[in-house]
C-alpha cells in the first residue's frame, strides 16, 4: 500500500509508539509566540526543568500584541525575551524585526519539505504549504516539545481535496478555502490532514498555498499539506542553495515526500473552482459562507486587511490596486497590517503603503492584534468588520462585534463602498456602480 505525504513524514520522524494508534515524532523545529509560550516556560521552570532540547531548532516571536500595550503584555514579552536570551535562542524576533509568526517563519526559511514542526498556535497549519507536517498544539504539548523535541499524534489519516478547473479573475485562494470550509463544515476534517492536490494548487504561488492551508483548521484539520514542487524550491532557494547543486536537484529530492499513486485516503473530494465566485462568511462560524453578491450592501464599520491568512505582499498588492487613487467610505475605519517588516518594506518600495494612506487607511506595524481582538483594531459592541482574517467567532475581534471573512480584494472594495461589495476584479455582478 502506498503512503500519503503525512504518512511519509510520520515514518521519517517516529521515535515511539506508546500505543497502537499513537506516534511520537521527533521535531525538526518548534515555534513559539508570547501568548502560549510563557505559560510553558513558567511551568517548566516550576518543575526545575528550565531547559530546551536544541536552541537552534527553536524559533520565537512576539507577534500577538506588539509593541506591548500594557503591563501584562509587557510581562509576556519579557518572559519570552529573557528565556530566549537565557537559552541562546538566536532566532528570536522582537519589536522592529517581528511579524505574524506564520508569515515570518516561512519567510525566514524555517519550514522545509518533509519537516515536522509544532507551535502553540492553531494556524501553524499554514506551514503545510511547504509539504511539511505542521500542526498547532496547546501549551503542554509545546512545553514537552521545547524540552524534549517530540510530540504525540494519532496515526495520520489524510483527506485528499483535489482542486480542478481555473480560478476566474478576482477569485483567490481565500475564496477557495472558504468554499472548502463551507462545503465540509467546521468539523469536516477533524483529526485529519488535508492534502491538497490538483492543477489549481500547482498553479498557486506559495503565498496562495499558505492562505489555503491556513484555514484548514477552521474545518478541524490537524493541518493542510501541499506537495513540494518547483515553486516551493524557488521560495526556499536562498536558504537551501548550499544543500543542492541546483534547483532541479532540490525539486527532485523533495519529490520523496510526494504521495504514492496508491496512497489511501479516508475521503477524497474533488472541487471544480471554475465557476467559483468571491465568497464571504455570515454568522459566527467559518463554514457559514455565501457569495459576496448575496451579502452585498451589508454596512460595515471597519475593514481589516492583514493576518496570517492574508497579510502577505500579494494580498497588499491586490488590495492597494483596488483602492489606488480612491478614498474609502467616510464611515469605514480601514486598517492595513503588513504581516512582516520585509513585507512592509516591499510594500513601501512599491508605493502600496502610499496608496493605502492616500485612500484613508491606517497602516499598522506587523501584528496579529486585530484578528483576535487583542490590539490595534478591537470592535465595539454591535460593530461590523470586513476582514481578511480567518475566524468570525462571536466576540473574536471584540465583544459583541461581527466579523465577515473575505479576500483582500473583496475587503478593499468593501472599504470603498462602506458595505460588503464585490471587487472590480471580478467580472460578475457588482451591487454598486
Amino acid at each position, binding site marked *: 500500500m502506498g503512503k500519503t505525504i503525512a504518512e511519509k513524514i510520520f515514518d521519517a520522524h517516529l521515535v515511539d509508539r506508546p500505543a497502537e*494508534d499513537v506516534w511520537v515524532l521527533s521535531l525538526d523545529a518548534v515555534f513559539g509566540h508570547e501568548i502560549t509560550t510563557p505559560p510553558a516556560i513558567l511551568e517548566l521552570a516550576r518543575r526545575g526543568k528550565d531547559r530546551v532540547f536544541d536552541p537552534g531548532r527553536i524559533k520565537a516571536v512576539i507577534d500577538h500584541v506588539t509593541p506591548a500595550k500594557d503591563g501584562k503584555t509587557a510581562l509576556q514579552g519579557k518572559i519570552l525575551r529573557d528565556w530566549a536570551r537565557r537559552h541562546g535562542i538566536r532566532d528570536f524576533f522582537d519589536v522592529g524585526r517581528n511579524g505574524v509568526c506564520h508569515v515570518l517563519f516561512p519567510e525566514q526559511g524555517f519550514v522545509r519539505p518533509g519537516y515536522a514542526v509544532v507551535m502553540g498556535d492553531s494556524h501553524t497549519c499554514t506551514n503545510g504549504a511547504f509539504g511539511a507536517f505542521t500542526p498547532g498544539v496547546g501549551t*503542554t504539548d509545546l512545553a514537552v516539545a521545547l524540552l524534549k523535541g517530540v510530540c504525540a499524534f494519532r496515526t495520520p489519516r489524510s483527506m485528499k481535496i483535489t482542486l480542478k478547473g481555473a480560478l476566474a479573475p478576482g477569485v483567490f485562494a481565500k475564496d477557495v478555502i472558504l468554499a472548502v470550509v463551507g462545503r465540509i463544515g467546521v468539523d469536516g476534517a477533524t483529526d485529519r490532514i488535508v492534502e491538497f492536490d490538483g492543477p489549481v494548487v500547482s498553479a498557486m504561488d506559495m503565498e496562495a498555498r499558505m492562505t489555503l492551508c491556513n484555514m484548514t483548521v477552521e474545518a478541524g484539520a490537524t493541518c493542510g499539506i501541499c506537495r513540494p514542487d518547483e515553486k516551493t524550491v524557488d521560495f526556499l532557494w536562498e536558504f537551501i542553495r548550499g544543500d543542492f547543486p541546483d534547483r532541479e536537484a532540490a525539486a527532485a529530492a523533495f519529490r520523496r515526500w510526494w504521495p504514492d499513486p496508491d496512497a489511501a485516503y479516508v475521503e477524497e473530494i474533488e472541487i471544480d473552482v471554475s465557476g467559483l465566485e468571491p465568497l464571504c462568511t455570515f454568522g459566527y462560524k467559518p463554514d457559514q459562507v455565501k457569495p459576496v453578491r448575496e451579502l452585498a450592501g451589508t454596512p460595515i464599520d471597519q475593514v481589516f486587511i492583514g493576518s496570517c491568512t492574508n497579510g502577505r505582499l500579494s494580498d497588499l498588492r491586490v488590495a492597494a490596486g483596488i483602492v489606488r487613487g480612491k478614498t474609502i467610505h467616510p464611515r469605514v475605519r480601514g486598517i492595513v497590517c503588513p504581516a512582516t517588516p520585509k513585507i512592509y518594506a516591499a510594500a513601501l518600495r512599491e508605493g502600496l503603503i502610499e496608496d493605502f494612506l492616500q485612500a484613508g487607511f491606517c497602516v499598522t506595524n506587523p501584528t496579529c492584534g486585530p484578528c483576535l*481582538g487583542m490590539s490595534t483594531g478591537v470592535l465595539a459592541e454591535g460593530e461590523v468588520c470586513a476582514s481578511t482574517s480567518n475566524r468570525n467567532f462571536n466576540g473574536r475581534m471584540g465583544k459583541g462585534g461581527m466579523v465577515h471573512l473575505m479576500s483582500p480584494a473583496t475587503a478593499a472594495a468593501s472599504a470603498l463602498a462602506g458595505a460588503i461589495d464585490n471587487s472590480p476584479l471580478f467580472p460578475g455582478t457588482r451591487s454598486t456602480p
Partner: protein
Amino acid sequence: MKTFGGAARFLDRDDINTDEIIPARYLTEVEREALKPYLLEDLRLEGFDPRRDLAGCEALIARANFGCGSSREHAAWALEANGIRLVVAAGFARIFRQNMFNCGLLALELPAERIDALFRRFAGRPGVSAVADVASGTLAVRCGGDTERIPFALGPFERALLEAGGWLEYADRRYESLRRKESP
C-alpha cells in the same frame, strides 16, 4: 483509578469554540488561576449566564465539535480553575481534546445519539450530576434516583496520560534520555 465530574451543566450547542470558552482579551494572563472568572464569558447560548450557571459546576455536557478554533490551552485551564475536570460531548476538536488529556483532564466522547438521549432525559432538571469512573469505564448521569450508566472506552495512551497526571509528567518519565534522529 480516578473519577471525574460531579454537578453537571448542559450546553445545548454544537461547535462551542475556544474563543467562547475563554476570550482572547484574557490571554494576557500568564497564570492559570487568573482565568477563573472569565470561563464561557462569550458563549452564545440563549438564557445562559456563566456566573449563575457555572457556580458549583464540575462537569459539562455539550454536543458536537466542542473546543474548536484556537489552540489556547487556556480553555482547558479555565475549566480546571473552575473545578470542571470532565467534558462530555458528541465530539471534540483535536487540539482541545489533546489539551484536556495533556492536563490530566477528561474529554469524553460519546455517540451523538447518546448525547441526545442525555439531553432529552436530564437537561434542565435541577441537581443533575455526571461522574466518569475511568477504572470501570462507566459514566453515570444522575438526577435524584434516576440514573443512566453509559460505558465508555479510552485508549491506553489516554489512560496513561490521566494516570500520570498529564503529558509533561508522562513524557518526562518516558523520554528521560531521548536521542533524536537526524532530520530528513
